[in-house]
């Protein structure tokens, strides 16, 4: 025993059995393909149509099981699932074409009724105790433990085929997804391409069924593309990225579910995908929450610095100023931080006044900054004043009335003092009227 163990390069537990490896590879490719195909479902806003198709698959699984005489043959069951998924999509189109029912209600009807029919059929099958029917419920929430290597290979092959199709028709699908009107005007068969995409989504939903289950497989198609969208604005990058996220989510879901007994795979895959999304929403460059927060902080900081420099330049006319004097003119937390930054970067420098107190003044560098800022402000003022009369008219519409800000009493006082100043200084103008 000891000798045998010592012969091995690493402990036996580290090598998963062949079957597990193949299933993992199959599920990984399913996740990848679902992500890739899902991109167009999300871009074309077909996410919930995919959901309706997914819920309809259960009925097809039950029918195929009955037609196949009780064999649990995965390709047969998935073929049944695909046919009802496509029938559900056709139902959606028919309801849209023939009735007043709007799209949202149509989706809910197809989803609810087809799922109900599926449940009815599966319950009927299991109530009659037809042999082999026990495993059918795994299609509800997904359960990869029962997959054989051959099944996984079929799923993997179908996934790769779907990816190949999307790659082959990348130009057409992208065009239709982003500008269907232009595509139609250029003579592309938009409706055909649209239907083909939706059918491809149905295929992916069916292929994802063993991994994620009818109820949650949509998430496998929707969440990875949404995640990828956070990282990029380019379709060429979004597709492989979505595939990658789908792959990681599917694999981690399968791994956790095989480690925990009695845990369906589907929910775990979905939670893994959602975690990736949550991380992306936080950390993605440019669109992520963190990036946004930093950006807005930078803007606020730059504005506060500029404001401080402007005030400092004005105060310096009367000699060095104290921190309190400066901040009294430009209050706020951001201004306090900006003051520290200005001191640290030596834009302002400490001096000792003749009276012996500590104060600050603008350094050469700071004065340059302040001068540049006031130059820019002046330039903008120039631009605004040079704007055409009508444009300026539009600008002033949004300016609130001073009474609203200062209050009527204060405004009245200002007017009175202005009037007093005018009558004191301008007897000439008074005489002219």
């Amino acid at each position: 025993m000891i000798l045998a163990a010592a012969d091995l390069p690493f402990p036996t537990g580290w090598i998963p059995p062949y079957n597990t490896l193949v299933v993992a590879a199959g599920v990984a490719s399913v996740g990848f393909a679902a992500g890739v195909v899902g991109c167009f479902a999300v871009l074309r806003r077909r996410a919930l149509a995919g959901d309706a198709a997914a819920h309809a698959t259960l009925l097809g699984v039950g029918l195929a099981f009955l037609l196949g005489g009780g064999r649990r043959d995965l390709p047969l069951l998935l073929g049944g699932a695909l046919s009802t998924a496509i029938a559900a999509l056709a139902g959606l189109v028919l309801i849209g074409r023939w009735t007043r029912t709007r799209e949202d209600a149509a989706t809910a009807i197809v989803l609810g009724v087809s799922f109900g029919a599926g449940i009815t059929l599966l319950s009927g099958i299991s109530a009659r105790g037809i042999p082999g029917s026990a495993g059918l419920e795994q299609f509800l929430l997904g359960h990869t433990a029962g997959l054989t290597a051959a099944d996984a290979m079929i799923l993997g092959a179908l996934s790769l085929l779907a990816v190949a199709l999307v790659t082959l028709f990348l130009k057409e699908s992208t065009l239709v997804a982003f500008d269907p009107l232009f595509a139609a005007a250029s003579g592309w068969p938009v409706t055909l391409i649209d239907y083909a995409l939706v059918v491809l989504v149905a295929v992916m939903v069916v292929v994802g069924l063993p991994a994620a289950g009818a109820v949650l497989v949509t998430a496998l198609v929707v969440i990875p593309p949404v995640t990828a969208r956070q990282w990029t604005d380019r379709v060429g990058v979004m597709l492989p990225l979505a595939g990658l996220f789908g792959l990681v989510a599917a694999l981690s879901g399968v791994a956790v579910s095989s480690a925990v007994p009695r845990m369906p795979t589907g929910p775990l895959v979905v939670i893994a995908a959602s975690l990736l999304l949550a991380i992306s929403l936080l950390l993605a460059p440019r669109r992520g929450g963190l990036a946004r927060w930093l950006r807005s902080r930078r803007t606020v900081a730059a504005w506060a610095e500029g404001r401080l420099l402007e005030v400092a330049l004005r105060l310096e006319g009367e000699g060095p100023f104290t921190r309190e004097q400066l901040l009294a003119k430009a209050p706020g937390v951001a201004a306090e931080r900006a003051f520290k930054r200005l001191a640290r970067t030596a834009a302002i420098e400490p001096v000792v006044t003749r009276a012996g107190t500590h104060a600050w003044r603008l350094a050469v560098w700071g004065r340059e900054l302040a001068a540049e800022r006031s130059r820019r402000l002046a330039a903008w003022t120039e631009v605004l004043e040079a704007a055409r009369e009508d444009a300026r008219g539009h600008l002033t519409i949004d300016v609130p009335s001073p009474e609203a800000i200062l209050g009527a009493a204060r405004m009245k006082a200002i007017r009175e003092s202005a009037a007093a100043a005018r009558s004191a200084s301008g007897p000439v103008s008074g005489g002219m009227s």
Partner: protein
Amino acid sequence: MIEIDTTHVWMHFWAIATAATVSAACALVGSFLVVRRLSLLGDAISHAVLPGIVLAVLAGGRPGGAGVFLGAVVAALVTVWLTNLLGTHAGLAEDAGAGVAFTTLFAIGVVLVSALASQVDIDPGCVLYGILELVPFDTVPIFGLEVPRALLAAATVLAVLVVAAALCWKELVFTAFDPAAARAAGLPVGIVSAGLLVATSLATVASFEAVGAILVVAMLAVPAAAAELLVRRFHLMLVVAVALGIAGSIVGYLAAWHFNTNAAGMIAVVLGIEYLLAALLAPGDGVVARVVSRESLRWRVACEDRLASLWRAEEGDAAALAPRTLLDRLAQARLVFGGRIVPGRAGGLTDIGREEARVIVRSHRLWEAWLGRHVALPLDHLHPPAEWIEHHLGAEVRGRIAADLEGDEGDPHGRDIPPEEFPRRAADEPTR
């Protein structure tokens, strides 16, 4: 034996009563959702309340108790909040945002149920499709009568919803049909919408035990959508939706019992059949009505074209004689049967037929003449529009066109326009 039998009947009665109550509550809320194009909110909420329910049960709430309702409402609000958040911050379209939010919450719920199976008395399967058949076994005594707890919860929710709908009827309807105007009129649209959200989650939770998460979607959307096809007034739509929901529950339960299968699923199927029938048979714009009106128009056009071509044949245009298509032949047979055409191979017009044909040809040529006078169309472009409109011109329009033409007797092709009335002999003409 008799005693067991009685229990049996009571059991079915309670199950049907529960299903019908749940259905009525869902149809009530669902009508507002369908009209406001929020059906998928029902979908999202019915999935998303699961973690709320599980956590509430885990915290010690009894299934069907107030704590569970609170948990579900909170979960529903979280879903909507998440969807909005994904919309505003991640720039997601609403469908994708909802798709992300509710699948995630539902997944968390299922994982909680599976992981805490020993502590939480909820079955993952039951979560999805409910076990209506088991409802009668969990009862509470009310005035000495053992009433199922689920029925009690559902009835309470239904009562609350009915009272709320009656109290806020005006606001609800105004907001449902024109949210912008309602906001402009000073209604608290946000609060009304939030109230609808809460109502949806209440109906969902009440239904949860009986029919499960996903079939609630069917109960919310299907009767309401079917009712919308059948009637045009909103208050009637509510009544019809509730009636359809109740009928679907009763029929569905009995069918499920007969076929020995899941009752909630069968109710959804029956509701689907109701919708299908409504879509087919709705008065006015149901599929059947539309097909009938389209085909009857086609049929009328074929008959009238037939008459008109015989008229032209009598004028000497022999090319118009033989009926070619199947529809033409059928029209010919119908006209012969109706006494418009003389039977036999030659088949000229009878007097009645000639009368009708004259009106059609008159319409046709009046229109050509009018087009020729007022619209600068080439001669060979006049026929197609006239061929279409000849079937739709009434006597009054014909009179006005004739007046406009100021007694011009011919069409642009140089043929006579037949008169409106039979030409009378000069002797019959009243003298002025």
